[in-house]
């Protein structure tokens, strides 16, 4: 039992860490696809995000089962799993946003702001990856988490403008309006969940000190 722990030199832990890194990198890719798909109105690319979400789900299951097979102290496990679940929920949110996009015709007045948000979403995911890697090294996370907050605040500001501009658009069909509203809502809440995830990394970091 514990002898295994010493001799495996943290093998299980490294596997888990590898998987989580893969999960976050996949998230960055998905956000990148989303931004490009939005910019170029590429529906096929948008659909690929659904496939990515399915792969991410598999990765999540792998991570959780590896953790409970004996990686990391039992003390850490719930927080790690919570983090993984939060990251997974971002994929779901991205997928929902993609679905809405496929269902609507994005008004031109809103397009540039939406692309800006999508771009910032990608940036904030990259920052999450950087934060995770720093946490592994045991470094102080304050700077990185502040950077994530800055991105989130920027997106919030754009959201305010988006809603204001969206209100100027004439809606003739309730469902068109509803889907547009959901699209904007999903798009702008991705950064909130990422901020949540980064807060969780801070929790894990502090609990091991």
């Amino acid at each position, binding site marked *: 039992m514990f002898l295994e722990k010493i001799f495996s030199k943290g093998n299980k832990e490294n596997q888990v860490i590898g998987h989580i890194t893969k999960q976050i990198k996949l998230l960055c890719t998905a956000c990148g696809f989303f931004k490009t798909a939005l910019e170029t109105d590429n529906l096929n690319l948008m659909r690929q995000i659904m496939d990515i979400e399915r792969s991410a789900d598999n990765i999540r299951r792998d991570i959780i089962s590896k953790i409970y097979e004996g990686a990391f102290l039992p003390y850490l496990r719930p927080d790690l799993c919570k983090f993984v679940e939060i990251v997974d929920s971002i994929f779901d949110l991205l997928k929902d946003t993609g679905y809405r996009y496929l269902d609507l015709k994005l008004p031109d007045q809103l397009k*540039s*702001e939406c692309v*800006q948000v999508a771009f910032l979403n990608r*940036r904030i995911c*990259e*920052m999450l990856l*950087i934060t995770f890697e720093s946490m592994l090294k045991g470094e102080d996370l304050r*700077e*990185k988490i*502040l*950077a994530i907050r*800055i*991105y989130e605040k*920027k997106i919030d*500001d*754009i959201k305010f*403008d988006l809603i204001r501009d969206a209100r100027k658009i004439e809606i003739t069909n309730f469902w068109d309006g509803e889907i547009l509203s959901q699209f904007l809502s999903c798009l702008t809440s991705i950064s909130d969940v990422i901020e949540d995830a980064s807060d969780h990394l801070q929790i894990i970091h502090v609990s091991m000190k």
Partner: protein
Amino acid sequence: MKVKEFMTTNIESIGYKRSAYHAVEKMVNRRIRCLLVRFPGKEKEYGVITARDVVFKVLAKGIDPKKIEVSKIASKPIVAIDQNTDFKEVAKIMEESNIARAFVCDQDRIIGLVALMDVMSAAIIARARGEHVS
């Protein structure tokens, strides 16, 4: 980090003949601190009016804002920075011109605004990303 990454794209503008009062209304309503002033002419001419201009040049002097044109208190020409400028350069330009905000342009089109807060945020993000901030 390029300035286009951390600029605000929400720019409000106002015609040069409008009153200072109209400018105040717009700035207070939208909670922004400056407006782009549009001047007539074939060459796109711009000026800028800030909260400082209104307070120092109009309100402090006891002038009725409804009776003074924006063109009288705006500053010309504006400082415009290319969208691909690095934020450290932006900081330098702002320091040299002693301004708290500058416009960002793509060729001759104004596409955004960058303020001191944005430059600071860019510095934090650059550090966090591991880009060297000297």
